[in-house]
């Protein structure tokens, strides 16, 4: 008799967070005139708060389900309220709260924002708190600015109100890098604005000049309009186009030619020639071409930069791994202090379910510690007195007292971050096609221009300068330099809509040439948490009753094994729960004594002794009462439903799939066999993971790494392309080149297919723009091209390039096949 538990009935999903509603639960509330069922008291409390403050239109407008709230109970736990109260202290506040004329302004980072409706909900809910004057939430970087009167409402109330509607707020401490990013963004916007306004103005004046050239115009007007154009174009060239000049100079110094060199040459050359023409009142002016060219290119750069900054939320990512506060013991008294105040030698109590604040030694108590963030091992590890614990890991079972031995930058967590920085520096550079083309192009243009100049000098010296210049302007690589960014921007946008966010410019090119794809196991190929797979009843109780009993006992534990039962919890109540570290739980329901846990442990209390272990491999738990063994439960970390098809699809595309995991159990081989991965390496540390990828790279492989945990961060940084899962830690996401926001592995196949298509489009674009330049070159060389024809040709060729890139906006999605057995996985695109 085998019973498979399935909770995947999506139609019964929680109205608030979309997670499945456990059978038998009864959390409902009225939203928009209809009763809605929720999955847990946490979601219920959040939904009731939202409806209670009259903000239920949130549910109509949201485009994504909300994240499941962190607080699972109906009320905020006392411990959280105490922790938030720490922020009322002036010393703690001074780095994220500033005093303004009318009150205070706080900068916060808010976790859990999924769509624009969240921003609306947060802003309106915060504005409803007495004393709040202004609240602004930024959808792009998830930051909130709140202006309020501190004498009316303490900041802890603001923070707890944000928790109450299902989000988490943390103080925002920008680090240096992040401040630089912000400045870069503002500077780029200003440059774009200057170029845009300048372009429009010069274009207007240019129309007058072109009209005059055709119909006749007095010389004094021409001179005046030229001077006016000079005034407008000068800031565009000096301020807006400066990044191109700086980059070109840098590239010339390092002796390699990139796209910036011909760009600067064209802008600088045409501008200087026009200035010369204006002053000497001779020749032709090209101010319109210069400004338009600058504006077009800046748009490309700006879009690229915005994609890059999208996940730039690095400021708080490391901090969020560590708790904000710790319970320090001074002379026998417990005192709640901010983590930053901890020093080596302090004694700290860590309660079950809390994060260990810093590296330390256990001096009292024993418990098990969830080190999954650092090692990828999802089962907690037993720790006793004198064992070392690592900051950022979670204490699972019993309270422990630890003595701090390392703080700040000496901790293991910081060591991983340093490893990450080193890996980033050593990351192999991806050769960009455009840069390769650019170096040939520059050489060709310079040689041709010189030949033309010398040729005309010998034939007719008076025209030599102007014709040479028109050669430079006509061959101005506008289309050429737009060829890559437009294609990349279009493809990036398409992938984002489909759930794969690209954050670095090189990703699409390196995805197209990838040869190996390396997966982490826990959390990437699997769901990353244990779930109940199978129940084998042994005695008179049926499957359901056994689950109810087990859930009633496990309800009291935060162990990952116990969590697998949490959603099954019913009305039954267990009392006198006792926790045996690493063994299991014991408790009473009514008068009956039960044990659940390791078979040997559970069977100790029952008269019938230990039953034979079932044949299927996996993690088996035994439930016993005093009379007999009641049921076997099999737990497992579920493989993601789309994983098998993804691996097959990737293999069909000619990629080598590998699995690299810190997990050491037999499950590794099982997962690999099930998915059809030939090469699986288990039990490796973050350093070894990085080493393995480096070895692959030395053999000439182009590696894509897909991972999620802290332990994956160094290897994510070291691989040519790295993709983090949507549920990954912030630190992993900010350091990855791409994020799978939809949690759907199949989007990787889309990504690779689109990347290959993008590469093709880029090549077409490059070929087209080169053809255009080759055609225009002889005409310009023989002096047939007037300035307005050069400007027209330039715009037309740019439009063709942009239009071609737009083709990347369409993507045929790779669908999950419902028949998972032996289907030939061939790329559908």
């Amino acid at each position, binding site marked *: 008799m085998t019973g498979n538990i399935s909770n995947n009935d999506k139609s019964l999903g929680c109205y608030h967070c979309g997670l499945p509603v456990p059978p038998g639960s009864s959390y409902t509330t009225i939203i*928009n*005139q*209809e009763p809605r069922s929720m999955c847990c008291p946490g979601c219920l409390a959040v939904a009731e708060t939202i409806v209670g403050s009259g*903000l239920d*239109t949130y549910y*109509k*407008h949201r485009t994504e389900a909300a994240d499941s709230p962190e607080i699972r109970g109906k009320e905020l736990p006392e411990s959280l309220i105490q922790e938030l109260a720490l922020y009322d202290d002036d010393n703690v506040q001074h780095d994220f709260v500033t005093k303004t004329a009318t009150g205070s302004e706080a900068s916060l980072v808010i976790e859990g924002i999924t769509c*624009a*409706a969240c*921003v*609306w909900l947060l802003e*309106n809910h915060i504005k409803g708190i007495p004393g709040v004057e202004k609240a602004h*939430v*930024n*959808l*792009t*970087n998830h930051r909130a600015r709140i202006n309020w009167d501190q004498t009316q409402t303490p900041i802890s109330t603001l923070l707890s109100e944000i928790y109450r509607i299902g989000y988490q707020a943390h103080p925002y401490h920008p680090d240096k890098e992040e401040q630089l990013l912000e400045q870069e*963004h*503002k500077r780029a*916007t*200003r440059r774009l*604005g*200057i170029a845009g*306004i*300048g372009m429009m*103005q010069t274009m*207007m*004046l240019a129309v007058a000049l072109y009209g005059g050239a055709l119909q006749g115009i*007095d010389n004094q*007007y021409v001179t*005046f*309009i030229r001077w*006016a154009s000079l*005034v*407008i174009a000068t*800031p565009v060239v000096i301020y807006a186009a400066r990044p191109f000049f700086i980059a070109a100079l840098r590239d010339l110094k390092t002796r390699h030619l990139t796209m910036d060199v011909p760009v600067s040459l064209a802008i600088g050359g045409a501008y200087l020639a026009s200035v010369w023409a204006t002053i000497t009142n001779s020749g032709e002016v090209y101010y319109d071409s210069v400004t338009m060219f600058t504006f077009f290119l800046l748009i490309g750069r700006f879009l690229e930069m915005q994609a890059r900054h999208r996940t730039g939320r690095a400021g708080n990512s490391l901090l969020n791994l560590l708790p904000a506060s710790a319970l320090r013991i001074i002379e026998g008294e417990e005192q709640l202090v901010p983590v930053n105040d901890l020093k080596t030698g302090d004694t700290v109590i860590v309660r079950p379910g809390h994060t260990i604040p810093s590296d330390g030694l256990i001096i009292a108590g024993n418990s098990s510690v969830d080190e999954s963030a650092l090692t990828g091992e999802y089962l907690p590890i037993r720790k006793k007195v004198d064992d070392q614990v690592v900051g950022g890991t979670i204490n699972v079972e019993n309270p422990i007292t630890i003595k701090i031995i390392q703080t700040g930058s000496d901790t293991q967590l910081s060591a991983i971050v340093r490893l990450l920085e080193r890996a980033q520096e050593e990351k192999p550079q991806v050769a960009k096609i455009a840069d390769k083309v650019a170096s040939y192009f520059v050489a060709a243009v310079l040689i041709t221009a010189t030949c033309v100049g010398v040729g005309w000098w010998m034939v007719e010296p008076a025209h030599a300068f102007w014709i040479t210049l028109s050669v430079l302007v006509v061959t101005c690589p506008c289309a050429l330099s737009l060829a890559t960014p437009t294609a990349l921007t279009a493809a990036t946008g398409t992938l984002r809509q489909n759930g794969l966010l690209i954050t670095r410019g090189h990703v699409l090119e390196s995805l197209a040439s990838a040869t190996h794809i390396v997966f982490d196991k826990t959390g990437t190929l699997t769901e990353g948490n244990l779930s109940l797979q199978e129940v084998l009843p042994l005695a008179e109780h049926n499957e359901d009753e056994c689950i109810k009993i087990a859930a009633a006992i496990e309800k009291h534990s935060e162990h990952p094994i116990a969590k697998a039962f949490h959603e099954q919890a019913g009305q039954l109540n267990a009392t006198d729960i006792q926790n045996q570290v690493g063994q299991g739980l014991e408790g009473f329901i009514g008068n009956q004594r039960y044990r659940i846990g390791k078979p040997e442990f559970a069977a100790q209390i029952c008269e019938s002794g230990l039953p034979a272990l079932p044949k299927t491999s996996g993690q088996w738990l035994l439930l016993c009462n005093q009379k007999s063994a009641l049921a076997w439960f099999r737990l497992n970390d579920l493989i993601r439903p789309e994983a098998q098809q993804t691996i097959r699809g990737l293999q069909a595309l000619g990629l080598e799939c590998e699995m690299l995991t810190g997990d050491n159990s037999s499950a590794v081989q099982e997962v690999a066999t099930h998915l059809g991965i030939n090469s699986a390496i288990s039990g490796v540390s973050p350093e070894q993971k990085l080493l393995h990828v480096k070895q692959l790279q030395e053999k000439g492989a182009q590696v894509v790494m897909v991972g999620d945990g802290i332990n994956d961060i160094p290897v994510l940084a070291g691989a040519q392309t790295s993709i983090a899962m949507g549920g990954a830690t912030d630190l992993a996401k900010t350091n990855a080149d791409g994020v799978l926001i939809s949690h759907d592995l199949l989007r990787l196949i889309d990504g690779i297919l689109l990347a290959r298509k993008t590469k093709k489009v880029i090549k077409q674009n490059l070929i087209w723009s080169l053809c255009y330049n080759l055609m225009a070159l002889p005409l310009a060389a023989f002096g047939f091209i007037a300035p307005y024809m050069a400007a027209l040709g330039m715009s037309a060729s740019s439009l063709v390039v942009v239009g071609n890139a737009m083709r990347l906006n369409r993507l045929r999605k790779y669908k999950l096949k419902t028949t998972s057995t032996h289907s030939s996985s061939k790329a559908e695109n």
Partner: protein
Amino acid sequence: MDIIFLLIPIAIILASCAVWAFFWSVNSGQYEDLESPAHSILYDDDDDLIPEDARVKPDNKSND
């Protein structure tokens, strides 16, 4: 045609005013979030502003 000697300088002055306004708006952070304002206009949180006789009855509203 001599009027352009006056009009073009005025155009340049106006353009520089536009540049100044643009710089001010960038520096005061108005370009930091280009996504949420586009959505915020669509939220019908203005129920209390709609005149009594123009209101749609609640049961005619679509629930989604």
